[in-house]
């Protein structure tokens, strides 16, 4: 198992280096001038001010020197400074990353419970009326445009019913809990502030439900297919023939066999959620990586662009690593292979 993990980690390091190189080179060929993009009309017309800005951003140096400086910084944990926040990019990632992670985790949890649960129900009721309804719902989940769903959900549950807030992680002006994990739900519980925890949950629910819609549909279909596949196995028939209860057959035998492909989907979908929350974060004013990345791209904030690219790459690498390890835990045959 240790060798298995070591090999995966080695490959991950190579992937990160490659990502940095590609991301850096791509920003170098981006159309637009990152220096003048920061300047107003009058300032951009002043050569001295433009030169000062280029020097401040390090753009006055040759590309290879810029790359070397950047990589040297990365090895020290310095991803440069963001011009949109006037903070180190690393600080921004530490601030915005947990916000997106909290949202993505909540969405994944919802998707696993609802999508996974309904997928199992659909498989156990295969080809019946309930299965047909659930399959139609799952198709709706993966098809629904997320921005439309977000706006409708906000209009109904926030504006009309007032059940959930329409934006932000907390009410306006409320001081966040002391930072431990960056997850407002967890940090407020750690701080013993239960009303703040409830407020954080209240803000989290609607965007998490919206974000989970596609994943619910996807998981439902995958779980259904995976469970059906396992249900057809002879060892399941043998278990039933032995007189084991239905619950024991499903939870003791079927799920274990069906979990492997489902975990793959959950892992990949979670990584996609974490990296692709831009629309939801914009609509719900959720200060996460998605919003940060969008602003970075809009303002040619090069350090932030490369920093986010590295961050997203690391997420995918980490999630794939964890998924691979979980395979080995769930199915010993995989780690022996």
């Amino acid at each position, binding site marked *: 198992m240790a060798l298995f993990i070591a090999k995966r980690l080695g490959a991950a390091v190579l992937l990160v280096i490659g990502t940095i190189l590609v991301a850096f080179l791509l920003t170098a060929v981006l159309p*637009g001038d990152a220096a003048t993009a920061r300047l107003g009309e009058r300032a951009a017309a002043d050569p001295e001010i433009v030169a000062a800005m280029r020097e401040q951003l390090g753009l006055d140096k040759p590309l290879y020197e810029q790359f070397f400086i950047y990589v040297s910084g990365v090895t020290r944990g310095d991803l440069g400074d963001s011009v949109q926040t006037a903070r180190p990019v690393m600080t921004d990632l530490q601030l915005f990353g947990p916000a997106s992670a909290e949202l993505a985790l909540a969405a994944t949890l919802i998707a696993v419970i609802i999508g996974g649960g309904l997928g199992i129900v659909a498989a156990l009721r295969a080809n019946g009326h309930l299965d047909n309804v659930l399959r139609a719902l799952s198709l709706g989940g993966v098809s629904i445009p997320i921005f439309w769903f977000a706006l409708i959900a906000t209009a109904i549950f926030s504006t009309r019913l007032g059940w959930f807030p329409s934006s932000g992680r907390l009410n*306006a*002006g409320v001081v966040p809990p002391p930072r431990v994990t960056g997850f407002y739900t967890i940090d407020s519980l750690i701080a013993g502030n239960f009303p703040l925890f409830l407020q954080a949950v*209240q803000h989290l629910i609607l965007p998490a439900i919206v974000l989970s819609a596609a994943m619910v549909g996807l998981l439902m279909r995958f779980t259904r297919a995976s469970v059906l596949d396992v249900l057809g196995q002879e060892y399941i028939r043998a278990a039933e023939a032995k007189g084991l209860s239905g619950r024991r057959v499903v939870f003791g035998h079927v799920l274990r066999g069906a979990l492997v492909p489902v975990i793959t989907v959950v892992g990949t979908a979670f990584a996609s959620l974490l990296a692709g929350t831009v629309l939801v974060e914009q609509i719900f004013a959720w200060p996460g990586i998605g919003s940060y990345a969008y602003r970075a791209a809009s303002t040619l904030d090069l350090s932030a662009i490369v920093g986010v690219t590295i961050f997203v790459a690391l997420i995918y690498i980490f999630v794939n690593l964890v998924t691979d390890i979980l395979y080995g835990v769930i199915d010993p045959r995989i780690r022996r292979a």
Partner: protein
Amino acid sequence: MKRSVKLVGAAALIAASALIVSACSAPAQNESESAAVESLVIDKSFDLVTADPARMYETTGGIVLHAVYDSLLTFADGNADKPLPSVASEWSVNDDATEYTFTIRDGITFSDGTPLTSADVVFSLNRVKNIQGNGSFLMAGLTVEAPDESTVVVTSEEPNTAVPAIMTSPTLGIVNSAVVKKNGGTDAADAADADTAEEFLNQTSAGSGPYTIESFDTTTETVLVANPEYWGDAPVYDRVVLRNATAEAQLMDVQSGTAHVALDLGSDQIAGLGSDVVVSTSQSPTIFFVFLNANPAVSEITSSPDFREAVKYGLDFDGILELAGEGAERAYGIVPSSYLGALGPDGAVERDVDRATEAASRIGGDLTVDLEYASDFSSNGLSMGPFAERIAAQLAEVGITVNLKPGPIATTLESYRAGSEQMGLWLWNPDYPDSADYLAFGPGEVVGLRAGWEAGAAPELEAVMAEVSTETDAAAREALYKQFQKLHNEEGVIIPLFQPAASVVAASAVGEVKYDPVFSLDIAAIGR
């Protein structure tokens, strides 16, 4: 197996119910609204970058820092006609507008209780000049000295009647020089490299304004609290939260009551609001314009006087205006309607399809041009796309084919500033509330060069520009600005289209909140 189905289904149902119960058990937003009015929540789509006034030159930054820092002069009540005393209790100017003497008001203290003196003014203005930031151009050609603790003298190399208007800018807000120096600030000539006070000022304000900064974040929200040391009338709201939200989120927030003021709603969004909000609509000084590149190297078509005539008479300005929504006004000249010398409808160009078609036919050949504009940028709730489409449709009727070339602003800005766009659709927000700012639209000037309009291309127009820039008599200036715009319109290189409306939506509990044409929003004036 059936029991398994029921168990799984029950588990899913319990989980869903737990979520709903937890949500409903938390206090609903509207129940806390009456308490939250003490903490005023203002939604704005942020372009916030810094809380350092010397480095600030954005709309949102101006809103924040106008509340935190006082400038020598100011405007009030949405009136941009004449600067009013602020830090300076009075001022005088010499005959040729090259020297302004400001008397510092007695009794002003910074938020830490330190008295504000002329040395702080000199430090603040020189810091802006030498830091070489976005707002440094405001001090171009100006030097500042303090002959004594209560007097500041601003000297201009050339006659400059715009100095009082310039001195109202939040970028020229007066900072506590001792505190800023202590935290890495400098006004020396090398301030661009040597000044390191931004990080401090992003956490702690050092001003004398009605508010201080409690917390500052360029991406989520910035919180201001009333300054107990403020020398003027205390603001109504002790605590103000300026929150980053898109226009769509602002609409939801103001409808649900989670925001008390929304600054970026367009006329279509406002039309759907109920009676529990107060809408205040006024004229924005922003000018939307289209230009035709005058550089033959960029386009032989757009640089042709016949083409300019074809476009000028081919555009249906009312048809463009209707897209701008209620409250928008046609721009008859490049100077906004509320500024000295603004043109009115007399003598305005009206659409003449026959004349435009004939002008186009004189050019001959294939009249196909590219119209570039920013596809991801909006102002006052208006995005460029619909206007570009309308312009293309109108010019098609007179024989001109316009290819629309939208692009992200980060890339289109570069081609615009490089002067390489054949046609461009852009807008201009005033740098300071004075007509002199709009000389930038002349040949050889900032915007003129974007349109490929080099110095010397319009001698008569440039002569008027030179004359008005040194004229100090108000009546003469007004006449000269009108003449400038008439000649400018005749050239037809840059065609002003309209001024949008600026609307502020406020909860009825807050009352009317007016748009400020200079600062966008005067937070301290809300509720008065």
